């Protein structure tokens, strides 16, 4: 059984075991290591990607479910995107291991709620653990990307 899907807009065909985690398929079959594994049980969000535009923890998605799906990973986010730029400008990354997942969660949040409030941000990112930043720089980055903060 093979699964056909798109990853970052490119058609891909996975021949992995269908019960295999999307996380492993991305990293090992397709050579996309930007998606990180922090816990393997959907608690930390480091492996977050978009599946058909919706945020998902790729450690909990069996690839067998993805026939026809559109997957977006951190490799699909350009450096000049407002989210990446805001994360850089606001100092929202430290050790960086949670950052790709945090960026994906931000992209999903802003897509659903472009004018999000600080409360929305705190709820929207609550599935993405960061141990370095204490979240403050991240809130600032998301709000800046949302246009709520003046660009300086």
């Amino acid at each position, binding site marked *: 059984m093979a699964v056909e899907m798109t990853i970052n807009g490119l058609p891909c065909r996975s021949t992995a075991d269908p019960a295999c985690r999307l996380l492993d398929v991305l990293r090992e079959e397709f050579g996309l290591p930007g998606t990180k594994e922090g816990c393997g049980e959907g608690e930390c969000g480091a492996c977050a990607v978009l599946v058909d535009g919706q945020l998902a923890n790729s450690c909990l998605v069996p690839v067998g479910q993805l026939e026809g799906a559109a997957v977006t990973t951190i490799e699909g986010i350009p450096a000049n995107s407002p989210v990446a730029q805001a994360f850089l400008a606001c100092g929202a990354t430290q050790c*960086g291991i949670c950052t790709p997942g945090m960026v994906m969660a931000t992209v999903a949040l802003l897509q659903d709620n472009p004018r999000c409030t600080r409360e929305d941000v705190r709820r929207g990112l609550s599935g993405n653990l960061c141990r370095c*930043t204490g979240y403050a720089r991240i809130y600032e980055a998301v709000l800046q990307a949302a246009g709520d903060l003046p660009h300086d």
Partner: protein
Amino acid sequence: MRSGERDFSRNPLRLDGMDKILGRTPYLDDLHLRDPDLLFAATVRTTLPGGVLEGIDFGGGTDWSDMTVVTARDIPGTNAVRLLENDQPVLVEREFRHAGEAAVLLAHPDRRRLRKALLQVRLAERPAGVPVFTIEAALQGQAETIPGNTYTEYRLEKSGPRQETGHPDTVIAVEVETPSQEQLYIEPQGMVARLAPDGVVRVEGSMQCPYYVLDALVQCLGLPASRIQVVQTATGGGFGGKEDFPSVIACHAALLALRAGGRPVRLVLDRAEDLRVTPKRHPSRSRVRLAATPEGRLQSVAFDFDLDGGAYRTLSPVVLSRGVIHAPGPYRCPDVRVTGRAVFTSHPPFGAFRGFGAPQSIFAMEVAMDRLASRLEMDPAEFRRKNLLCPGDTGPTGDIAGEDTHARKALDVALERSGYARRRTEHEAWNRAGGPTRRGIGLATFCHGAGFTGNGETHLASRVTLAATAEGKVELLVSNTEIGQGAATTLVQVAAEALGIPMDLVVFGPVDTARVPNSGPTVASRTCMVVGKLLEKAARRFLEQLPPAGGKGNAPGRPDFQEACRKLHALGGAGEVTETYAAPPGPAWDEKTFQGRAYASYAWAAYVAEVEVDLVTFETRILHFTAVQEIGHAVNPQIALGQIEGGIVQGIGWALLENVVWNGSGVMANDRLATYIIPTSADIDGIDVILLEEGQGAGPRGAKGIGELPMDGPAPAIANAVRHALGVDVDRLPLTPEYLHARLAEQQEVHSWLSK
């Protein structure tokens, strides 16, 4: 150099930022994903809390012919993890002291086969002795594994003239306990080892201290340092957790690689294994007795400070020493006696975690200060203000507080900024109104010494090198690691500023022991302050060495500078500048009496927490948090803010949520992220951080180390706020709803008993 070419803006963007944001930074787990030679590795561990390994049964259900297997007998060098003492084996040979000790290592190219084999191996373990799991049990000494079950005992004693008032002192005694805490770096620990064709054992991985790893490999493999190369890969958080344990994993991976004919071996812990076996914050017990005059002058501090060191010595003595020195707090007091002990228990060894013993003792002291203030019927802020060290005072270690002693300023700014007095009144009114919640405000004043304790930096004798590159740039060669704290940016900033060149002409070299000198470990808030200062000095000498090139005067323009660098590079090693640490003038440190200058600089801080406790569920919510710290100079204010905020949230976690639960074998039972609870964004709102910069620290442009500082203050500030809210004394962390519920119930029982 023309001013237009200068790039000294105070918040240059993190140099590693965009690669991390876009997931392009390779961590260990991202490397070798498609290397056909790669072997995966796993560890068979003891299950009893101490005993004797009598045999290993490899089981018949699997094909062992192509499995790489390593046991203690395969260790070519010394079977001991190199640290302070050789008491911890790399692999269990016979006796072992805790559950989770490595006994057998396995490696295979197929992960499924590896896992199957792992489940097949049976260790024949015979229990020996009675395990001890608490400080109390260890000190009662029913089962002594080491003499007195005590690794180290330290005493700090200071006596001076007390203030005679003609009235008896007000005295309080407090006993508090703090739990362990897991660092919870989001990237688990791991290493890849191989034997390179040139006969060098190359180990790469996630770590804070490459030279610790190198020294451990030298001892375990019995090879000269010249045949070992340690390379740090991008490290997804450390917080102390990757100070000593990477040495263990590196030895294991290297032993397997040698056994497998030099093939690369990847040993990465999964989350549960990482939680169960890697070192965490030391649990502590503090017994504090304070006395003050009726006017609120501290007269004596008597402090018994005990740490649970776990089953091997590892770093416990150094953790203990920092805890002892920080115990008396930033206060003026004529009579100070601190006794510290690190004791043996049957838990896996405890280790470094941000703050390194200081958060434990500071918590006890600050809780005690609030209780004494209550006894004196004084406001806790006023009581502290009266006793905070000022320049010229004699501190607890007998050292004279320098001009950079800004404890009072930090407090005053924090009181002002938080609206402390007004908020205190408002919360009391709120509580009198009798709604479903109670509110409180609490304070902690503290200081944290940066760099190695006492003469540690002198013994370390760190070296840094600046080298000109063929591209006409300057390369920083240091063994200090970027672990998220921003070192790869701030050190470049410091060097660029000292060299008078833009940052893009400075390169942070790869942290590879084959290239970098030993500038010491990345611990103890020392990187920016101590190593940064060395780089500043090295830069001056580098400029002197720079051959003349085109430009006039001593400030060459960019093209000239680059040309000069290229010329210098052509000289090879002769063109490099290496600077070695030299002790600054000042009183030496006496390790016997704990008197003298303990740290090159202290950073001073005052934190204010406001909390709300729900009386239906006993859940505590942070309403507001104000953190003021005098840090000398912020090399990069944005990075400094991020450090402080992150440390505070770890402190909030320790105060309210994080609880290591032990199973019957003394191993962490809540070994999943679903059960070990750290703060999410929903738990954390705003934290108001104020950096005071007085520029008198020992680091570049007067910077002081700040990495550990923010871990010290949140727990006591929150505990004091909860006490203010509920009117009950708290005596342990974390302040979970379950604990507060039990504490209130106890208190009500006491009240109703008293009123009978």
